[in-house]
């Protein structure tokens, strides 16, 4: 599992690569939370494009970030949900809570301008 951080405007983009299971979820959580604290920002885009696997531990870790960001007054969205991950996000009903976008540009536009999300389902 690899995590890449990119700061775009005052929004943290988190690009995940590899397999997001319980083993990696804890490390992802710590890395993201400490990066948010370091930059003193509170809005997040998760780019899931590089994930080849995710189970319910990944769902839990994403929901955990979502709750934390909302509690701090920020917003969080997802983008680039790849085929191996789309089935579990659908069954978990993740899109009912967290907006999904095609790519980082659309996600960024939504967070900066409040454009409406292009839901996948």
């Amino acid at each position, binding site marked *: 599992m690899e995590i890449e951080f990119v700061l775009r405007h005052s929004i943290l983009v988190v690009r995940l690569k590899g*397999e997001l*299971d*319980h*083993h990696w*979820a804890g490390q992802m*959580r710590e890395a993201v939370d400490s990066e948010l604290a370091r930059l003193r920002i509170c809005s997040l885009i998760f780019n899931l494009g590089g994930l080849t*696997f995710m*189970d*319910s*531990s990944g*769902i*839990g*870790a994403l*929901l*955990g970030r979502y709750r934390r960001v909302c509690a701090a007054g920020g917003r969080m969205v997802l983008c680039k949900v790849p085929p*191996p991950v789309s*089935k*579990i996000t659908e*069954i*978990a009903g993740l899109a009912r809570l967290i907006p999904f976008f095609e790519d980082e540009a659309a996600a960024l536009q939504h967070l900066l301008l409040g454009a409406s999300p292009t839901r996948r389902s």
Partner: protein
Amino acid sequence: MSSSTFMKLEIESRSENEAFARVVAAAFVSRLDPTLEEISDIKTAVSEAVTNAIIHAYEDRIGVIVISARLEGNRFTVEVADEGVGIIDLEKAREPLYTSKPELDRSGMGFTIMENFMDELTVRSAPGEGTVVTMSKEIRPKIS
């Protein structure tokens, strides 16, 4: 081709073994020529059961997890067994969104995912003795 075969794997309840268990399950079922989606479903379901044994059954200690799998015709069956704390209220445990560990970012979706990704799921558990999760899935024969 033989129409029935089995394997049994014993691993420790360490989180590095989640990925290992997935690879083993996928490699074992591969001789039925499953689709990418069927492999992904099986990997996910096995990952859920093994993760539960690591987090819930053994909590802070290292115990043994036994993964037994069978192929009978086109049916893949896998059993994930632990000798951990067990489950007191099985019905409640299987409810979507129920988790006994919300503080760990658990989603409570494990059993729901196993049910959705496999054809059949049965759970046997005895408090203080352990839990056995059995799942099976029909691999559809390819038309070639």
